[in-house]
């Protein structure tokens, strides 16, 4: 119960007695408040199921090595087979390829989003490219660029370019036209318009594209590393496949998974920081 007391100039509003707070509250339809460490609950649960299954003998080592066997294999690879070197060369490939793809994709999206001429030149080819799986282009790339690093990085760049382009372009075109009108009345130039209106307005789209691009780049990495790699996680997996070392294969898969998960988390955290101006269900 609440009571309102008018005493000359003072208005007191509050519970009649402490602990007697009766209110009408609507059922929440949004996701509600954040849970601490919510990010890690799902993966931790998956690890627990895997451990329990292996310990109980439900998961045979020939099918999937137990987590502790994978840990031992990890240590063996680290000490005797330069695992760190493999991780670093894989990281280098995906970071270089991703950077190249993201930059190109974003620039193309802005050019095509802001000019009709650019759109007619860029948009069509990218939509056509989108329907051809990049991985199907690898044989062609090998013919063009050889089987070295160049082919690998170009494949990763191309595979991450498309989602960045699509989502940035979509986000940019979704910016309310009234902001462009405001910018016109304020009398700013194109450069300032791009910097203050277009880029921040397209940022939510760009970040969504980034999440797809990061995982696509890892997918590309896995595939290109099967081709004549002399180092890298893919190389390690290929060797383990030849020797039938399931535990080493799992080490490689876990590392790919950790890469992807960390990268995606980084993008999402960045998104939450730089999109503080939005009031959404994300919270």
């Amino acid at each position: 119960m609440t009571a309102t007391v008018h005493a000359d100039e003072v208005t007191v509003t509050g519970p009649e007695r402490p602990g007697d707070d009766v209110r009408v509250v609507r059922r929440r339809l949004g996701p509600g408040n954040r849970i601490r460490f919510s990010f890690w609950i799902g993966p931790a649960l998956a690890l627990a199921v895997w451990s329990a299954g292996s310990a109980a003998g439900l998961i045979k080592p020939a099918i999937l090595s137990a987590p502790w066997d994978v840990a031992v294999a990890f240590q063996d690879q680290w000490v005797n087979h330069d695992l760190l070197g493999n991780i670093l060369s894989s990281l280098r490939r995906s970071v270089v390829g991703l950077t190249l793809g993201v930059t190109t994709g974003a620039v193309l999206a802005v050019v095509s989003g802001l000019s009709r001429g650019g759109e007619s030149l860029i948009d069509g080819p990218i939509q056509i490219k989108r329907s051809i799986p990049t991985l199907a282009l690898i044989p062609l790339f090998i013919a063009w660029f050889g089987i070295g690093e160049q082919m690998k990085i170009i494949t990763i760049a191309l595979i991450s370019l498309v989602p960045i382009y699509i989502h940035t372009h979509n986000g940019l075109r979704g910016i309310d036209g009234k902001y462009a009108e405001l910018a016109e009345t304020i009398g700013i130039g194109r450069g300032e318009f791009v910097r203050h209106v277009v880029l921040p307005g397209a940022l939510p789209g760009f970040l969504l594209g980034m999440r797809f691009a990061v995982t696509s780049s890892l997918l590309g990495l896995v595939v290109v590393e099967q081709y004549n790699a002399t180092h890298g996680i893919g190389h390690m997996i290929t060797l383990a496949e030849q020797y039938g070392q399931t535990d080493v294969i799992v080490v490689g898969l876990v590392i790919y998974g950790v890469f992807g998960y960390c990268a995606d988390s980084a993008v999402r955290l960045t998104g939450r920081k730089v999109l503080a101006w939005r009031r959404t269900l994300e919270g």
Partner: protein
Amino acid sequence: MATDTRGLTTRPAVRVRDLHRSFNRNGGVLNGLDLDIAPGEFVALIGRSGTGKSTLLRALAGLDRDVDGHGRIEVPASVSVVFQDSRLLPWKRLLDNVVFGLRGADAADRGRQALAEVGLAGRERAWPFELSGGEQQRASLARSLVREPQLLLADEPFGALDALTRIRMHTLLRRLCEAHQPAVLLVTHDVDEAIVLADRVILLDAGVVHTDVRVELTRRSRSDAEFAALRTFLLDRLGLDEENH
């Protein structure tokens, strides 16, 4: 107001001659409109829906490049527009919105001062979504005034606000205009608002100036008899009876 004599001796801030604008071939929205606004003069533009109020304002703002028409428009170099919605960029904090596009090393200081003038001191770091509708519209006024425009164009700026907030905004706008002395063209559908704020009320009908009256009230109070008489006159010209209003 002292604008009478100034209006006669200096060039008008706004000069419109024989302005035509039309959205389709059937008929024009503006049909040969003539209008002068003196520097520092506050003009309110009223009229029924579809009589071309917003079309005229958008023509003066240079925002009608896709509309057919001809005629002469002369406006000052510095024109600022206040829209019905505040149009604050949601991704910029309040101060950055106010000084958006402003040049000069003292831009931030001028922005802070403008925010203080509209009663938003201390809210410089707020995001637009954290502000009420009235506060957002005050911020958009600050964004216009910080540019020291010679012409302020306002398209129903208080249309979306509640009655109480609107009255407060009237007082604020009146004070700001007296301090900064821009020529003002305010589009409104509210006759009372026009009389409270303006030096001159222009009624648009069929795309031309139908009625042009100077507001010479000693007291701008709605309860004043002269105020009521002017309101009755304007409503009559709008084609409404006092009873129907």
